[in-house]
């Protein structure tokens, strides 16, 4: 167990480290995990390797951006609730400032034909990135070889895309199905043991 003294210096260090990590995570998401590992596991040795993996699992299972979730976990582990707030603030500040500036640029340049041509081209690039992501994720689900997962995926897609079913309904139903399936499986396993 690592114990760290909660001084003003520590909070400043937490803020600055999350701020700099966040400022260089372009595109967001999983990119932040290796950066955080390097900083907190290898360099500062505040967190153990195995614990970091658990943090990633929690960050993925909780709602909201992974980057924010992971930094809240690190902050909470090192300096409690105040630490979590400090790291969350450090993580959110760079995108908030940068995107505000980008919005102002966007608002004044979007009618420029060259900028417009660049945006149209980049949109196609982003579409390609999204197709790539979706294919990789779908492959992951198919590889599980779980019929329920496949059914949930297909039905959810049809429900969202063609019938505009509210996302909350889909999340609630699929979460409930997942819980029931797990309970049913563990019950069966328990029966087999007897």
């Amino acid at each position, binding site marked *: 167990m690592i114990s760290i003294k909660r001084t003003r210096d520590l909070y400043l260090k937490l803020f600055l480290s999350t701020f700099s990590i*966040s400022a260089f*995570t372009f*595109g*967001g*998401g999983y990119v932040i995990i290796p950066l955080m590992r390097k900083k907190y596991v290898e360099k500062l040795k505040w967190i153990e390797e195995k614990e970091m993996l*658990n943090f990633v*699992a*929690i*960050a*993925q*299972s*909780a*709602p*909201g*951006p*992974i*980057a*924010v*979730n992971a930094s*809240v976990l690190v902050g*909470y582990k090192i300096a409690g*609730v105040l630490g*979590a707030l400090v790291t969350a603030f450090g993580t*959110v500040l760079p*995108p*908030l400032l940068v*995107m*505000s500036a*980008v*919005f102002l640029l*966007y608002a004044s340049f*979007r009618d420029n034909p060259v900028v417009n041509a660049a*945006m149209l081209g*980049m*949109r*196609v*690039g*982003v*579409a390609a*990135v*999204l197709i790539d*992501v979706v294919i990789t*994720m*779908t492959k992951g*689900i198919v590889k599980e070889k779980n019929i329920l997962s496949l059914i*949930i*995926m297909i*039905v*959810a*897609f049809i429900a969202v*895309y063609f019938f505009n079913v509210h*996302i909350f309904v*889909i999340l609630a*139903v*699929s*979460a409930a199905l*997942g*819980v029931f*399936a*797990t309970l049913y499986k563990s019950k069966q396993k328990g029966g087999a043991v007897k």
Partner: protein
Amino acid sequence: MIYLQLFFSFFQVGLFSIGGGYAALPQIQSQVITARGWLTLSEFADVVTMSQMTPGPIAINAATFVGMKVAGFSGAVVSTVGCVLPSIIIVMILAYFYTKYNDLKGVQGMLNGLRPAVVAMIASASLVVLLLALFDGTLPQSVAEVSLISILLLVVCFLLLRIFKPNPIFVILGAGTAGVGWYFVDKLLTLT
């Protein structure tokens, strides 16, 4: 009151986007575009594009952008806080239970069910962006409306991503450069 609306809309985006990153796309689409009309579909595609090139998660980028557009910088701050608040609260609760019981099994079953649904929702939002990039949002009525250049660019980008697995930023920037290049070529062609 606009600040409250921004706060609660993005609170919901943060609360319901499970699975990180792209999982926020369908939420933003339903909260910001369908429910409130704060963004047009084409602005939505632009926000997704810009968020790939700026630091931070898409959800926060979108919150800042929409907040700025609707109510200026204070709007951006309110939306962003609304967006991350559910994360902060829920993750701290999970962290508390994790440090107390050191067990995540209860969450696991729920996740098993959620994961395929999240993939489906991301696929749906991606399809919207794809149609927008290629045909401005609606399926083309005739073959003449299809931009061959866009489709060619899409195929090239996609193959580059699948084969070389580069950082997506470079592919997106490359596509932007190609877009500008084509703009000038097209201009030259119409001049001559």
